[in-house]
Structures are given as C-alpha cells and as structure tokens.
C-alpha cells in the first residue's frame, strides 16, 4: 500500500474509534430527546461524571476496566433517575426552553462541583483492555481505541435491540410519539421516561469510562462532547437514531482526517464551516424527520 494511502487509512481508523464514542454520546442525547422532546445539554457532563466515577472506582478496586464498566453504568443509571426528577419532571408542562436551560444549569453545577472536588487537572481512568498497540497489517490500533470500538458496537447493538425488538422498546417509542394516547392505553409514560434518562446516563457512564483511559478526564471535558453530539444529532436529522450515528462518525472522520493533514484548529474551523454549509443546503439535516402540520 502506498504511504499516502496508508496515512489516510490510519487517520480513518483513528477517526472511527473517536466517532464511535461520539455516537454513544449522541445516542444517549437522542434517547432522551425522543422520549421527552427535551434537549439534555448535560449529557456531556454526565460523560464527565462517568469518567470521574471510573477514576474513583479504579482507585478503590484495582481490576481491569472491563469489570468496572457495569459498575459505572449502574451508578450512572441511578444518577440518571435523580437527574430526570430534577431536570425533567418539574419542567414537563413548560415551554421546552426551560428544560433546556435547566440542563445547562445542572451541567454547569456538575462541572464546578467536580472542579471543586478534584481540581481542574486531567485524571487518568482505567484502561478497558490493557494498554499497548495491536498491529492490523500495516496499520496500528491502540488497545484503548479497540476497546472503545468494541464497547460502542456492543452497546449500540444492545440499544438497537432494546428499542426495536422488545416490548419495552415498543412502549417507549409509542409514548415518545404520542404520550397522550400511550397514557390512555395504560402505558406508564412517566416511568418509561425516567427509564430513558437512566439508559442515557448509563450510556454516558460507559463513554466516560472508555474515554477516561486514553484521553483523561477534566471537569470541562463534557463540553466538547456535547457540542459534537448536538451537531451529530442536528445534521443527522433531529431525532433519528441512524442519523445521529452517521452524523457522529462523519464528524469524527472529518476531524481526524483534517487534523491529520492540517492542524486541530483547522479541523475545528473546517468542521463548523462545513456544518454551516450543510445547514444552508439541507436546513433540516441529512435525514429530516417527516414533519407536517395539519393546518
């Protein structure tokens, strides 16, 4: 393989691992969005919290990250329940902007709380599958990236199965599409919404652990993630699961490749420039939700 092509393939591979992590954040965001119509701007901060949970657990229990993963996810699911009671229940009958601002406020409080507890410096979390690099022919893939890819694939498939193939998923989708009718049919809509917050938080916890190893965690590390997830969900068509995953992968590939050939500053500038261009051409994203108003 010529060297040029090899570099490109390596950049794509790195981008895929990062994109998988972005996709999980975006999936958690879309899960809550679809269940409640609410925009959870604290999803990134939940990832950050999950990262610190992983750091703390790894201090107490020196076992491989793979064993800590369910623990972190369970703890974050509990936090998700608390979060839904604070950021969703009191605001469900108000215009959506209030719920959005409430998640911004709580996310801010979370960031500052971790800043006060752990300081602003980066902390390293546990590695999922050990450290080092695996050779795939001429390409290299770090064990951390491999772990992220595998875990994201597994969690993504599990979420797809849960939403698409189970009675629980059908009820969840029904109550998201039409909460009033769902309630009339005896579906416990409020409980399902609380569960979707728990799932979203558990996903965030998983990402937090996955990223805390190779990329470290700081109190503000959620901010970049939520911006990426927000872009992914918006260009993916605001509410489409498939669109969110595709959007997240596109963003990460774009960033990885542009950063590889130019600089990370150029990558950020190009990313937002490209998003603006995309929105000009397709004002409702790549996979727009079928909209219609019965006038």
């Amino acid at each position, binding site marked *: 393989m010529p060297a040029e092509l090899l570099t490109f393939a390596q950049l794509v591979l790195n981008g895929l691992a990062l994109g998988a992590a972005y996709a999980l954040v975006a999936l958690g965001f879309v899960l809550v969005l679809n269940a409640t119509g609410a925009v959870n701007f604290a999803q990134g901060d939940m990832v950050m919290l999950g990262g610190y949970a992983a750091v703390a657990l790894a201090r107490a229990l020196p076992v491989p990250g793979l064993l800590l993963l369910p623990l972190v996810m369970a703890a974050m699911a509990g936090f998700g329940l608390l979060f839904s009671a604070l950021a969703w229940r*009191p605001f469900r009958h108000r215009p959506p902007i209030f719920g959005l601002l409430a998640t911004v406020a709580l996310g801010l409080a979370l960031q500052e709380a971790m800043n006060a507890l752990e300081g602003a410096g980066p902390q390293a979390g546990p590695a999922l599958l050990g450290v080092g690099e695996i050779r795939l022919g001429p390409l290299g893939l770090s064990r951390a990236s491999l772990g992220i890819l595998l875990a994201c694939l597994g969690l993504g498939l599990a979420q797809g199965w849960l939403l698409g193939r189970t009675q629980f998923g059908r009820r969840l989708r029904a109550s998201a599409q039409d909460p009033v009718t769902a309630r009339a049919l005896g579906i416990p809509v409020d409980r399902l919404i609380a569960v979707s917050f728990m799932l979203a938080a558990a996903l965030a916890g998983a990402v937090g652990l996955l990223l805390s190893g190779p990329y470290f965690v700081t109190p503000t590390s959620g901010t970049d993630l939520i911006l990426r997830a927000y872009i992914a969900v918006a260009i993916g068509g*605001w509410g489409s699961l498939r669109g969110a995953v595709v959007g997240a992968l596109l963003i990460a590939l774009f960033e990885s490749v542009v950063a590889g050939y130019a600089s990370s500053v150029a990558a950020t500038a190009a990313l937002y420039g490209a998003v603006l261009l995309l929105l*000009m051409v397709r004002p409702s994203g790549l996979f727009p939700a079928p909209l219609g108003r019965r006038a």
Partner: protein
Amino acid sequence: MMRPASLVGLAIALWLLVVLLLGSGYEQRLMALAAGYALMAIGYQLVFGQAGALSLAQGACFAIGAYTAGILGGRLGWPLWAELPAVVLVPAALAGLAHTPVRRLDGHFFALATLGFAVLVRLVAVDAQGLTGGANGLVGVPAFGRGPGAMLVGWSLVGLGAALALWLTRGGNGPALALVRGDADLARASGLDPERIRARGFVLAAGFAGAGGALQAHVLGLVSPDVAEFSVMVGCLAMVVIGGRGSVMGAVLGALLIGHLPEWLRPLGASYRVAYGLGLFACLLVAPAGLIGSLERFWPMRRAARPVAGQRAAPAVATLRIDGVEKSYGGIAVLRDVTLEVRPGEIVGLIGPNGSGKTTLVNLISGLDRPDRGTISLGERRLDRLSPDRIALAGVARSFQTPAPPDGMAPLDLVTAALAAKRGCAGFGAAAELEPLQGRAADLLQRAWSTDIARALALDPAVLLLDEPAAGLDAGERDRLGLLLRALAAEGRGLLVIEHDMGFLMGLVDRVAVLLDGRIALIGTPDAVRADPGVRAAYLGTVPC
C-alpha cells in the same frame, strides 16, 4: 400606578447612585463591568426574549465588540467618537453576514448555526495571533480608569440602550413579537415575516453586544481571549432568564445580579460557581418568568381594552382565481388540474371526502405550500410565488382547522398582532400605538365568532378562507356564524368555506365545489350538487340530509 419594571428601574437607579457617591473604586469598577453585561443582555432580549430565536452567538458578538475596541481604539489609536460607531456596526455587520445564509433555519438548527459562528469567533480570538494577539490578548486599550468616570459612561450607554430597546419594541410590536415567538406559521398567516423579524433581532442584538464588549475592553484596559469563551454566553442566558425573559429592565437587573454574584458569593471560595449553577436552576424552578415576571404576576391587572368600532370602510374587492393547480407529495397526486373562482361577495363551499385535498388547496392558496403547476391570483396579482405573510397582506386571509393560540397569548393580543401587521409593523421599530389597536381588536372579537376568524378579519381581507368553521358548534352557534359570514359577504368579501356540516353549508353558500380525489368533480348551486347522482354516490349518500 407604577408597573414593577419602573419600580425595579427606580431601585436600580438608587443602587447606582449609592455606589457612585459612596462606593469604593473597586465597587464602581464592578458596576462599570456590569454595564457592559447589561448592554449585551438588553440586546439578547430582542433576539431571544422578543423574537424567540435561541441564538448562541450573543457572547461571540460581545467578544467581537471587545476586539474591535481593542484593535481600533488600542492598536490603531482611533479616538472614542470614531470608535463608538464601529464597535456597534462591526459586530452587527458580521452577524448580518453570518445570518443571511442560515436565515431559513428554525429552532435547534438556528441555535446550532449560531453556535458554529461562536466557535469560529473563538478560534479567531485564540489562534489568529496577528489580528487578536492570540492567547496574550490585546493590551493598551485606553482605560476609563477606576473612578466614577467609567461607571458614568457605562451606565449612560445602558440608559441609551434601554431607551432604544423600549422604542424598538413599543406599541403594536409587542403582540406581533409574541405571535412570532409563539407560532411562526400563525404569524405568517397573520401577515408577519418571522424570518425577517428574527434576522433584524439578531443583527440588533449583535450591535448591543458589541457596545457592551467594547465597554468592557475600555474598563479593563485590555482584551483577553476569555471574552470569547462560551461561559459569557451562558452568563448572558442566565441574566435574561433570572431577570425576566423579554423585559429590558429584567435584562439590566439580571446583568447586575450575575455581575455581582462572584463578589457576593466570595465567602464560599472556589465552590461559588457551584452555587451559581444551582442558583440558576433554582430560579428556573421557582420563578420561570424571572424576577420581573414574578413581580408582575402579583400586580393588579391592566384595564381591559374597550371595543372601538373601526370605520367599516368597504374592503378592496377582488376575485380569487385558481387556475389549473396541481400538487403532489412524494409522487402521489393530491390535487389535479383544480380550477375555481371566488368572486367578490360570493360564498363558495368546498366539500369532499376526507383526503380529497381540501386543506391542501387552502394551504396552497395561503402560501404554506407551493403548487407544482398552475396559477393562483387575486385580481391582477399573482399569489402563487408570494410568501404566506405577503399573501395575507395582499388580501387573502385564512382560518385554521384546529386553531390553538400560542402558549400564554390572550385572544386580544393575537388579533392585535394581526392588526399591527396590517399597518406595516415589522417587529422592531416604528409601529402603531397599542391602545387604538387593542380597541379595534376588542371590537373584532366581539363581532367574529371565533378568535381565529377575528384574527383573519383583522387583515381586512378581500377573500377569506375558512377551514371547517362550524366544527364543534351547536345549532345556535352555527346560526350566529352563518349570519356573520353572510354579513362579511355582503361587505363585498369573497368566502371559500370548507365544511362537513351539509345542512349548515347548503343553506349558506352561493355555489358548491365538490373535490373528489384531487379533482373538481362538479361546481354548481347547492340544489344542482344535491341532485347530481355522482356526488350523491361518492359523498352525500353517506350523510343523511
């Protein structure tokens, strides 16, 4: 009696006076910095609080203002009088440029686009060393100094800005803006152009933010890249939410509180910012209308508007012509070669089974959607290429099948908004006085059967499109509606009425058009339509009449 906003304004003025006369240099400097935030927040009320667009670029415009001041006033040594227009115009022009390509975006897509703009501004601030000084920022900006001077200059600017913002949103603009942020489609049908109004709000807001940022640069004597951080935007959101969304005085109050919060919470040490986040959350929880809005809830209600009959001048009459209109969605033809006329003073009924294309036809006439082929015109004027708001102002108004007034909007405000639009209100700036509009709106509400018909009548239309106006009415109410519709026709207006209630419709209309599978199957007098065997079989046969 004084309104809460005026009382709060008085309290703020007293607070400023005390700090000016008795405060330390440090306290006066804090006040001068708060003035910069206040200008940013007042501007943000225009785009977010009033026009209802969630812009995430207000912090970035603040930064542009600060850097403009730093470059022009600091590095190039421009005098203040030359710099002042620039710090307002540069951010406004950049915001206008950034907004033009994304003006069609709504809701979260708009928020994302403005966020993209903000990220690009931050990149320039941090990385364009030559222009912005990069991580070092810009130093040597002429400082107003520590004394009362900076505070006086800052709060004079706030006073000017507040007066300008109040003027921009006065009179009929208020209800019109409430309608734009409540329901964009309903606003369009009422003759308002939400895209243009949001664009104006965005550019105006950028100008205010620029002045605020420049003020900060001159108070600090430097520009640091921190000014472009997203926390400035979050602070701006917090100011308008805590102060009271939409209120100029609320923005000033919010800016004063947020500006002083670090000082007041200093005893908490490093964790004060946790309290800031939680305090913002608590405010959203217990006082969602903000401090000003919460005060207003406990204030005596305003005097009810007294109906004032408008001069019933004859409306401009014209014939609505629909000629060969076709429309399909995703390959399925919904309307095929529809040709129909509604003449002045005529009531035309439009009937057809569910799914035959009735509402689609009304949507095409009112501009919510465009026909694939064919023309629609009112008199000599082509309508099929106009936007919904132009069509509404040109003389074709519509009512909606399931009218739902936007959250928290009173019927009187809804009708007032349409009246203001008819008088050329553009959301910001010159507008008709509120009280005469409200009197006229109260009169229309008294006359019309429903709020939505009153809203349509406020546009003084030559042609009125009514989508199932009798749905859900009892016999007595239907009679009253029938009388109203006949009276409107007698004024020379043409009416196109979609209705399923055959008894009501057949007794009302001059002609009936029958729509079957997207085609006009028959047009004729009620008797002729009743007698037609095809129509009976397809449609009337299922209704006992």
